[in-house]
């Protein structure tokens, strides 16, 4: 049960109204906040898509590079084998030529 003093306190703490524009200001801020949130979601999506693109392009480039390096090394190996075969052939031809000149 409240006494007179407490009732006086209730009087001192009566509710007050905010300024007449408060409601419109809050609704405006809510709209702004929603717009910012949508923009932030779009930005996060764009960042994610860009990251995926960079990863895909990067790994494709890396794959292409290693493929080229593999091809280069296979080419060098083939060239070395060809040179060896040519050298052997040349030596054999030289021997045949010497035998032919000796006859």
């Amino acid at each position, binding site marked *: 049960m409240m006494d007179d*003093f407490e009732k006086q306190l*209730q*009087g001192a*703490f*009566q509710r007050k109204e*905010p*300024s007449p524009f408060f*409601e419109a200001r*809050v609704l405006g801020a809510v709209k702004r906040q929603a717009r910012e949130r949508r923009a932030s979601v779009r930005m996060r999506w764009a960042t994610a898509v860009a990251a995926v693109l960079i990863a895909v392009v990067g790994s494709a480039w890396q794959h292409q590079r290693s493929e080229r390096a593999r091809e280069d090394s296979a080419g060098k190996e083939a060239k070395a084998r060809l040179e060896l075969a040519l050298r052997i052939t040349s030596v054999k031809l030289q021997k045949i030529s010497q035998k032919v000149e000796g006859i």
Partner: protein
Amino acid sequence: MQQSEDAAEPRTFASVLRAQQSMVFSVAYHFLRDRASAEEVAQDVFLQLHKRFDEFESDAHISFWLRKVASNRSIDYVRKRKSQGAVGLEDAPVPSVDVQPADHFLNRRLQVLIGSLPEKPRMVMILRYQEDMMPEEIASALDMPVRTVKSHLQRSLAMLREKIDRSMGDVR
């Protein structure tokens, strides 16, 4: 779909804002004693409400949440201002009050005295006498034990009674 408990029309953020703006603003205003700061805090509270609006199941839940967040935001606002070296609210001017002339002096005096209370007891008094909340509800809103709320109320009331009696004696 969310429905107001006392009406058939659906509950919308705008309808809650319209119905509760006076309560939220008054909690902040009586605590901060400054209209601009109180509107800033109240706007913040409603922006936070909007973010979680779909989580609320009833008007009572919204009211309780608004009181709790308005109280805590107001306390945080004062602490932040103090940490930034701003003038303490105890030194702030007493706002104009729309009351009957006979009560004017006493109400002004009460507001000055309540403004001089520490933050938590001051908010306890506001929730008790503005919002007519019971000590159990205040304890839940401010995350403090019920006995602490009761002790704040008793001590604040005793202090206010004594100072008011003394100042009335001075006037006489």
